């Protein structure tokens, strides 16, 4: 059977609705379904990935040719990010297998599948309103997952996220409306061709609405108030979902729209500026955190700042470096959340203080945390090193020393607080012996991630050769318009 891009949306959605039914039959089936879905999707990625790198695949849904119908655009960038989503999703499933033991598990997996549907939808769609729908699918699943543990703080974090999130989608919907009222179309490629029909005033307004709307999902400063609470109150695998999948999809949406419609030097300058603010403020906030998951959340915001800076520079080199960094961050931050999840579980406390001595009691989990920490700081031989290096090189090439220094400052702060946590782990201290062990599925999940991180660190070429087509696809609006309208 021919694998078509629409299956990336259809299969997780189908699985999401199948899971509650399977729950009536057997819990094991419920647990296995997401894994099968991810295996099938990665099989699809293997088939489609090389094709998409050469030429974008445009899939017409429901038989209306673009610009009238909804079309899916599976270009190089989308292919790259969707492959990333499938990998991360698969490991998150593996990790959840033994981590989510609390009922109702079928609801957890259902929402998880919904979230995957929404995120791949955002990455794939070529239609502005369709993107809004997928954004909302993602957000509603994310709100519910945040409150999954049914505790006080979870509900509060979820409500906060919901408030901010609904504003984000309202703003985005308003921008869709303004664009539609001037151009009379919703297809990205078609709008990009007709963008001059919008008067400058309205165009500026639309830009602000899009930046605010999608900036909330992409954790751009100052719109990221939801992130630390949601990350730290949700179950650990959900933290990995947010950092690895949701945020990446939001950022892709924002950048796709900005690069297609509003690519002027001023806007790019503004992106760099916001990126720097996001990076520095988040890193400083992370420094002050006493809870490990809050620290990881702020670090995730900081990393997104770094990516936004690199995208704002907008050269070929910096864009591919930004994509590389997105890929690395998704894997490394998932690894950190996985390890932190079990460390918190073993020590029974979310405070960094209480992790003291766990490095000797739980050597394997702590080792994986240390690997993640070193990788995200950007030390060789891990993959984080190459993407950070590429970003720095591309910034230096663009000739802006001030930005270079600010990024380095951010990285130094980051190194300090990560190393502080790692040192805490390996400070010798008598810990009461506890018999709880990290289950094998969790260890395998972390092992896979660590192996990929190390492998990409040693042979960056495996990822690097795909970056150029992906970055080219993101930067080159003319190609997008041509392919999107055929």
């Amino acid at each position: 059977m021919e694998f078509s891009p629409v299956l990336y949306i259809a299969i997780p959605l189908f699985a999401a609705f199948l899971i509650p039914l399977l729950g009536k039959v057997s819990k094991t089936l419920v647990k296995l379904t997401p894994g099968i879905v991810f295996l099938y999707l990665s099989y699809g990625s293997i088939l489609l990935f090389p094709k998409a790198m050469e030429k974008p695949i445009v899939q017409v849904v429901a038989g209306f040719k673009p610009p009238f119908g909804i079309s899916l655009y599976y270009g190089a960038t989308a292919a790259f990010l969707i492959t990333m989503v499938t990998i991360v999703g698969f490991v998150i499933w593996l990790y959840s297998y033994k981590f989510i033991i609390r009922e109702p598990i079928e609801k957890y997996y259902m929402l998880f599948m919904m979230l995957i549907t929404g995120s791949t939808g955002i990455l794939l769609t070529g239609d502005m309103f369709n993107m809004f729908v997928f954004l909302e699918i993602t957000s509603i699943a994310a709100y519910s997952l945040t409150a999954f543990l049914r505790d006080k703080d979870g509900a509060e974090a979820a409500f906060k996220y919901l408030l901010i999130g609904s504003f984000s989608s309202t703003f985005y919907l308003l921008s869709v409306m303004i664009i539609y009222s001037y151009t009379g179309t919703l297809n990205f490629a078609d709008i990009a061709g007709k963008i001059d029909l919008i008067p400058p005033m309205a165009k500026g307004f639309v830009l602000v609405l899009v930046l605010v709307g999608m900036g909330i999902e992409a954790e751009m400063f100052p719109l990221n108030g939801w992130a630390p609470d949601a990350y730290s109150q949700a179950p650990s695998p959900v933290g990995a979902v947010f950092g690895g999948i949701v945020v990446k999809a939001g950022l892709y949406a924002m950048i796709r729209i900005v690069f297609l419609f509003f690519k002027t030097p001023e806007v790019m300058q503004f992106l760099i500026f916001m990126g720097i603010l996001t990076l520095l403020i988040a890193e400083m906030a992370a420094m002050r955190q006493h809870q490990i998951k809050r620290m990881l959340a702020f670090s995730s915001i900081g990393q997104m700042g770094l990516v936004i800076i690199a995208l704002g520079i907008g050269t070929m080199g910096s864009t591919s470096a930004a994509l590389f960094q997105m890929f690395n961050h998704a894997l490394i931050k998932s690894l950190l959340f996985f390890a932190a999840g079990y460390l918190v579980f073993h020590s029974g406390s979310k405070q960094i203080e209480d992790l003291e001595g766990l490095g000797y009691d739980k050597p394997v989990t702590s080792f994986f945390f240390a690997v993640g920490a070193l990788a995200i700081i950007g030390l060789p031989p891990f993959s984080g090193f190459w993407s950070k290096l590429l970003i720095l090189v591309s910034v230096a090439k663009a000739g802006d020393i001030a930005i270079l220094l600010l990024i380095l400052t951010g990285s130094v702060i980051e190194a300090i607080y990560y190393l502080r946590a790692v040192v805490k782990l390996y400070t010798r201290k008598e810990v009461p012996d506890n018999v709880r062990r990290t289950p094998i599925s969790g260890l395998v999940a972390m092992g896979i991630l660590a192996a990929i991180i190390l492998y990409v660190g040693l042979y960056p070429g495996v990822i690097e050769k795909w970056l150029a087509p992906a970055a080219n696809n993101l930067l080159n609006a003319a190609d997008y318009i041509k392919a999107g309208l055929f």
Partner: protein
Amino acid sequence: MLYYIGAISLILIGMYAVLTKKNLLKIVVGLSIVDSGVNLLFISVGYVKDATAPIFSMPSLTADKMVDPVPQALVLTAIVIGLATTAVALGLVIRLYDHHKTLNINKIRQLKW
């Protein structure tokens, strides 16, 4: 024009409620007022005076006598999404009330920003 003003003032009223009210339920009501405002605004964009639905089986109907059907289809979707969001929000409010026995947002706020 009147439609635009009405819709925009609905959005503003909703935002005012979300930003200033301390009661969780009032905040949720505010959110759904914002939703309605955006939906109305969207509908007004496609509105044509004295026009009717675009039914192609009526031969006397010409294109300038039709309203734009696209915004209506979109708004239908947006209404459903708004309903889902409101439902989730109300569910969370119930859970917050169970834990805290209050709906006042100042007394609930435990997580720092």
